[in-house]
């Protein structure tokens, strides 16, 4: 598993375990997020923030309270 895949896995875990999203929903939100786009373009930038931080960014993007 490369760094980008590990990062996605970690963010998905936060979305499902901490914020209660269903796995399919978490994956769909993640793959259509600005986070995912940023991860493809600048993985080093993304790597400087925690999975918790990115999960909250995704929830904010979809206006999901957390």
């Amino acid at each position, binding site marked *: 598993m490369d*760094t980008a895949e*590990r*990062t996605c*896995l*970690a*963010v998905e*875990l*936060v979305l499902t375990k901490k914020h209660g999203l269903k796995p399919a929903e978490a994956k769909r939100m993640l793959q259509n997020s600005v986070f995912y786009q940023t991860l493809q373009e600048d993985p*080093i930038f*993304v*790597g*400087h*923030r*925690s*999975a*918790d*931080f*990115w999960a909250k960014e995704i929830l904010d993007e979809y206006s999901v309270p957390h």
Partner: protein
Amino acid sequence: MIKNVGSSNGMLHTKLIWYVEWCSLIHWIWVDCRDCRDTHFVMPMTRRKFVYNNRIDHSKHLRCEAGSNQQVPPKYHYVSGPLADGNMADLLLVRERMMSVEDFLAEVVSIGEQISLHTKEAVNCLTGTGVRLC
């Protein structure tokens, strides 16, 4: 660049030149630090474990062989040495036991040198000598 100019009366007396590049500014700051405890890691694996200790949030996961962590409680006035890079999201995988600590440590690489100040005493040692536009 860190220059050790020796000790005085058995106390640590280190004169440092600290420079930070940020946007178009270069800050040149002299640091005259007396009685400050410091640590400068030269062993890469020790440094990696120190970085790991600083990034985790549960003391039970501390790698004691690294000797310390910086946060619980702050143990050093300042820390100098390699600037560590790595993937923060991996820490969650370590916590969930989906990645080993050893694999995490292997991913930590140095991308330069840094000095970080962690106590008021260390900050009080700073003397600003100006800012130069470049």
